């Protein structure tokens, strides 16, 4: 009798087991999906530039990003210069994503009639999930060739005097959907400088950030602090603030900056505008991307 009760109790307990099991979340049997895949932070900035500084973003693999940038004259030119709009410094260039990590780019500037080129490599990608990485990191090397006619054609001029370089480490993090911050320790090397007071090697620390206001508009700001004792008086740190407006395939970057040049050594070491005295340029970068190499694999 006792045994029968025990058997009956056992079956009563055991039988519903499988049915209960069948009702639980089936996918939980596979464990957490998020842990098996790596989720990379994307769209930390709308494009690969903040204003003048390179952002931590790179151009996507197989994409050509055509860029036209303008910096109008200084606002303090007043009505006579139509607040700077009478003059413009222009850069026309293009960046290409060789891979999702490697970007190369070239450009032509009206300032110094300079040709520039850069190579940028993303060595760290911020991610969560299977691979956890708090930061995105990139290295940037760029070179610019000044092609203005020699100021003193009578003396011996070397081609190497036309060359200027910039080396930069970019470390940043997308803290939230709206906030991204980055630091850009920078070394500028100029083969030829104007005066003895200016150093050929200039060390600087750039900082930049963006706050997304809506899905398609963000505000960007950047500041480049040049360590003291490297530049002649009259040169200033570059400060820029602007808006990114994204429409389909274009990103319009509208900004105010006290830097005239759009090439690395120029905006780091040759900025003369004084924000407090209206030494500010209105300017824009327009970025239009073209997919050269399609990426969908089936």
């Amino acid at each position, binding site marked *: 009798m006792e045994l029968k009760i025990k058997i009956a109790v056992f079956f009563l307990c*055991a039988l519903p*087991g*499988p049915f209960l099991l069948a009702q639980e979340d089936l996918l939980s*049997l596979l464990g957490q999906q998020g842990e098996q*895949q790596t989720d990379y932070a994307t769209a930390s900035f709308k494009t690969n530039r903040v204003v003048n500084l390179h952002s931590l973003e790179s151009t996507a693999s197989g*994409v050509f990003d055509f860029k036209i940038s303008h910096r109008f004259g200084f606002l303090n030119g007043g009505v006579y210069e139509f607040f700077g709009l009478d003059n413009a410094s222009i850069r026309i260039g293009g960046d290409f994503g060789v891979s999702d990590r490697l970007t190369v780019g070239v450009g032509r500037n009206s300032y110094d009639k300079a040709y520039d080129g850069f190579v940028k490599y993303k060595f760290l990608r911020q991610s969560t999930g299977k691979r956890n990485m708090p930061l995105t990191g990139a290295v940037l090397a760029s070179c610019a060739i000044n092609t203005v006619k020699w100021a003193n054609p009578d003396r011996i001029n070397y081609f190497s005097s036309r060359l200027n370089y910039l080396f930069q480490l970019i470390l940043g993090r997308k803290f939230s959907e709206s906030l991204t911050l980055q630091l850009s320790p920078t070394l500028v090397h100029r083969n030829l400088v104007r005066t003895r007071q200016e150093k050929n090697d200039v060390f600087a620390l750039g900082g930049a950030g963006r706050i997304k206001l809506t899905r398609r508009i963000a505000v960007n700001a950047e500041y480049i602090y040049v360590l003291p004792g490297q530049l002649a008086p009259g040169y200033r740190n570059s400060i820029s603030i602007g808006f990114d407006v994204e429409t389909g395939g274009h990103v319009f970057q509208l900004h105010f900056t006290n830097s005239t040049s759009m090439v690395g050594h120029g905006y780091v070491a040759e900025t003369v505008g004084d924000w407090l005295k209206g030494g500010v340029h209105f300017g824009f970068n327009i970025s239009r991307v073209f997919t050269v190499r399609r990426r969908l*694999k089936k």
Partner: protein
Amino acid sequence: MKKILCLFSVIVALSFATQTWGQKYFTRDGQITFTSETPMEKIEAVNQKATSVLDAASGQVEFAVLIKGFQFEKALMQEHFNENYMESTKFPKATFKGQITDMDLVDLTKDGVYPITVKGDLMIHGVTNPVVADGKLEVKNGAIHARSSFNLSPEEYGIKIPAVVRDNIAQSLKVEVAVNYELLTNGS
């Protein structure tokens, strides 16, 4: 006697347990494709990392897919898909929980192609809607290959499409699902 009873109950319990495990199938690399076709533009995206579990006994089936895992031809499209439309940081997953309503007609021990109907709740962008889709289960040497396709409208899932791109994105998207199920064992 008590010991024998104990042993007996353990054996019975274990056999029940293994039996239920044996009736479940899973995948971690299911393929989900969606296509939007308008006269202006054809947009296609593929995700090959869909996870799914199928309970062969009850016909219950579940899917989960990470929105960021959808690959587009154009990188910018993929960025806009995640940033502007799906808000994939806020809603990282799409899930489906449902039932193969005619599972009793499928004989997993016999090779063949069985037409099925799947009914359930599809959650995308934080919005859940009921979905009914026709599909096929193909049984071959004990393996199960399942495929299905259905249409859905982005509006039903609270995905706003601005007027400027209204002509580029279809009102009704075609979703295709293709899955090779493996037997779920304890080690899976």
